[in-house]
């Protein structure tokens, strides 16, 4: 138990949970500010999941570098539990926030986007490391925001899935596949380790 506690502390899980909670609170206020205005809500469906996904990706960062690999304990299992927990708690925070929004599918859309974007962040951790895991989901979100959906949603779904309606099954499959892929990759390979790291 103490090991799990120390592991979570080393991954700054406390500040990460605070960040997730703050994101949820901001999501509640967002709807109050913009009153479900179409463009603001379209942005909200990717903005809040993106912030939580960046927090999840950041949580994969190990401050101990290669030294940590010498321990005889199952690091991968601890990492899996920590990252899965962050995703689940992130989804819960967004679902609770969306409960104050007027439309029934809002929470589902937020949770789906979190799954996909967190998956993208985790997929990039073996190459970029936990601290730079935000680049991939951010780039995909920017591409999705800019792409004119009238050009044909289906042909560009690989980029536009965060903007698809909740009823779009293919977008849901893409998001879940990304999350599953991200968790598997981070379990197998772990985040990229950087020598000479100091705890920040």
């Amino acid at each position: 138990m103490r090991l799990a506690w120390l592991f979570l502390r080393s991954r700054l899980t406390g500040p990460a949970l605070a960040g997730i909670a703050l994101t949820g609170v901001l999501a509640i206020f967002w709807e109050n500010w913009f009153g479900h205005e179409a463009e603001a809500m379209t942005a909200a469906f990717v903005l809040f999941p993106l912030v939580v996904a960046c927090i999840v990706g950041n949580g994969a960062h190990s401050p101990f570098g290669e030294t940590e690999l010498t321990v005889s304990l199952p690091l991968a299992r601890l990492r899996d539990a920590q990252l899965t927990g962050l995703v689940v708690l992130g989804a819960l925070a967004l679902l609770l926030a969306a409960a104050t929004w007027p439309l029934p599918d809002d929470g589902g859309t937020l949770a789906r986007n979190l799954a996909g974007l967190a998956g993208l962040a985790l997929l990039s951790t073996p190459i970029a490391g936990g601290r730079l895991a935000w680049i991939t989901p951010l780039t995909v979100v920017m591409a999705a925001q800019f792409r004119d959906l009238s050009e044909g949603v289906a042909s560009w779904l690989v980029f536009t899935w965060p903007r698809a309606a909740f009823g779009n099954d293919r977008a849901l499959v893409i998001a879940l596949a990304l999350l599953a892929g991200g968790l598997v990759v981070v379990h197998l390979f772990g985040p990229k380790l950087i020598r000479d790291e100091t705890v920040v």
Partner: protein
Amino acid sequence: MTGTLRLFTIEWRRSVALWFFPLLVLAGGWFSADLLLSMKVAIWANTSAHIGLAAIALAPLMGGVAAWAAGRDQRRGMRDLLATTPRPAPQRDLAALGGLALWGMLAYVAAGAYDVFVSLRNDPWGALVAEPIVVGLLAVIAGAAIGYLAGTLVPSRLVPPLVPIVLFFTMGLLNSGWFWDDPVTNLSPWTLIEDARFGNPNTVFYAHPPSLLLESLLWLAGPTGVAIAAVALYRRRSLITWGALAVSVVVAATGATTLMLAFENPNTGRGQWETRELVASTPVCIERSIPVCVHPAFEPLLAENASQIDLVIEPVLGLSGAPVRAEQLPFANGMYANGTLTIDPIFGDVEGVTLALVQDSVAPGPGWNMQYHLQPEQDVIAIWLARRIDASAFEHSYRMTFDSVAGPIRDPVQDDIDAAVARFNALAPAEQRAWLEANYADLRAGRLDMDDLP
């Protein structure tokens, strides 16, 4: 000076932005050239706007990269060691930020060069416009400076992702419909670059309004100066750094104020296109079953457009209310009382043409955008006409248009419409023509219902 230059060179060569450079070029290229590639005709003003649009991706990304780079000394545990060096800390910061910004600018130039290459293939019309290009470049530098400031003040691992997210969504929100009629929208580089003065193909018909380059320059140089001065203040407080901060704040405030004063509210008539000066041009025409004319800039698309329009209007040709001429007019769609059908050659406009053919929706003048509310029987004939060209492209576009107007009301009648289209299509051409001769006027006037269709 040589020492500073050497330090800058080292920072530039060793900059973390070097590793991001391919991503930056790809992101910039995607944002700027994507829509440009889908256009079959090139207009330099439009290309200029697309070059600038690369900054919408590059400015936030450079912000994130700069925030990451600013935390380098902290990550490597070298802050105390570097504090002992004789060279002032702000000089090191300037060199690091300069190296980062230079990579960002190079990525911007590379993405822009691709835009120019794409445009040159299509014999572009007009001339490059400096304003959106310069605004984009300044936005990239400002993004890097803001990110560097954030990373310096808060060297947390969560800051590098938060900076680009905040920058991107702030620019996007200020450019969104929420701030459509609010002067604050002019503070977003996205708004300044995407301004319809450059990005809209209809600009070929109008003289350019006064430039906002100086105001934009002040506004975007301001935050850059504030960020640099704030970093310098954080390192060492002095009269010079306080003075630089004060001057930067004044410059930014001046730029912001003048930009907001220059805002043209679309709801109050100011800034409407029809109030601007039209540039005289002689349309280029081609004779088909009716004359089809476009602005000279769109001449490369004329033959293709004329062939499509020919196919669509052929079944109704000569009937009362059918078009006698098709012409590209600025900001217009629908059909005029004199029988002129307006066309939008850049997007093919099958949708606009077919909708105008089945409904009496006479456009009162240029600048007027028609709102179509078709009845189901008008839908049937519109779909049938459009399928004479390309069913798939039209159906996608048309259904989106219809859904946006009628929403879920469409669903219950969808099957009936599809069946009626199939029945009408199965008729012999002579029977189709006979039905149209007997019913075209009533169809356009909305006096038929689904039972009147064959």
